[in-house]
């Protein structure tokens, strides 16, 4: 067991936990905007952690530089995609779920 293996396993298990909570949130939360909370945040950090774990496992080469490039790209693109789609819903006047009118929808 090397040190980098341990670090990699820790990162991967953390990211798997976050992926699981994001998926649970996608299934359980009541409406579209709250589901976006789960996927938009959970997937970003989970993907970043697993990319970091893979980069540590692979060592310092040009390939791990590419992995870090994917991480930067996801860090920029994932919130933007979340924003774009929530903006489309907002412009289409999708009514958000509130506590007051809890039961309906």
């Amino acid at each position, binding site marked *: 067991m090397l040190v980098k293996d341990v670090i990699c396993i820790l990162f991967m298990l953390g990211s798997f936990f976050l992926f699981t909570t994001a998926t649970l949130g996608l299934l359980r939360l009541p409406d579209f905007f709250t589901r976006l909370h789960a996927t938009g945040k959970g997937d970003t950090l989970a993907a970043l952690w697993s990319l970091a774990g893979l980069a540590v496992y692979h060592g310092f080469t040009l390939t791990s530089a590419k992995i870090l490039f994917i991480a930067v790209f996801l860090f920029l693109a994932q919130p933007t995609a979340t924003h*774009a789609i929530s903006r489309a819903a907002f412009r289409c006047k999708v009514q958000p779920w509130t506590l007051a009118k809890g039961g309906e929808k």
Partner: protein
Amino acid sequence: MIRDSQDVIVKTLSRLLVPFMVIYALYVIMHGHHSPGGGFQGGVILAAGFVLLVVSHGLEQTRKRLSEKAAGVLSSIGVFIYAGIGALCLILGGNYLDYGKLSKLLPVVPAEARSLGILGVEIGVALAVMAVMFTIFLVIFTVGEFQEDDRSEK
């Protein structure tokens, strides 16, 4: 139908992202014989870059860089490059797309000539695929607009 997107976030991010995306697509095209990918995949990513530009910056900004007419010309040129290299091999006495025979024209050994021939064919395929994908996207996305353009030209 397509108006300039007022969304600051998507606009700025795609402004920063499109050049890198095009470079990545060209990398996929040019390294088709070392890594996965090649003409078709690279052409699709290249077209996706232009599609992102259309969606975020509007049609006018894109027409300055690649107009519909240029896309049509590029698709023909791509097919011409592909078929031309194949026919050149045929003329030089081999089979269709038998790149080894290109070494009679180029000052290199047959193995090197084969690599260069594959590169040329991939560039041709990528140009054709990119232009056709872009044209299809524009035709679908601007359903109501073409008639107005025709009227104004007359």
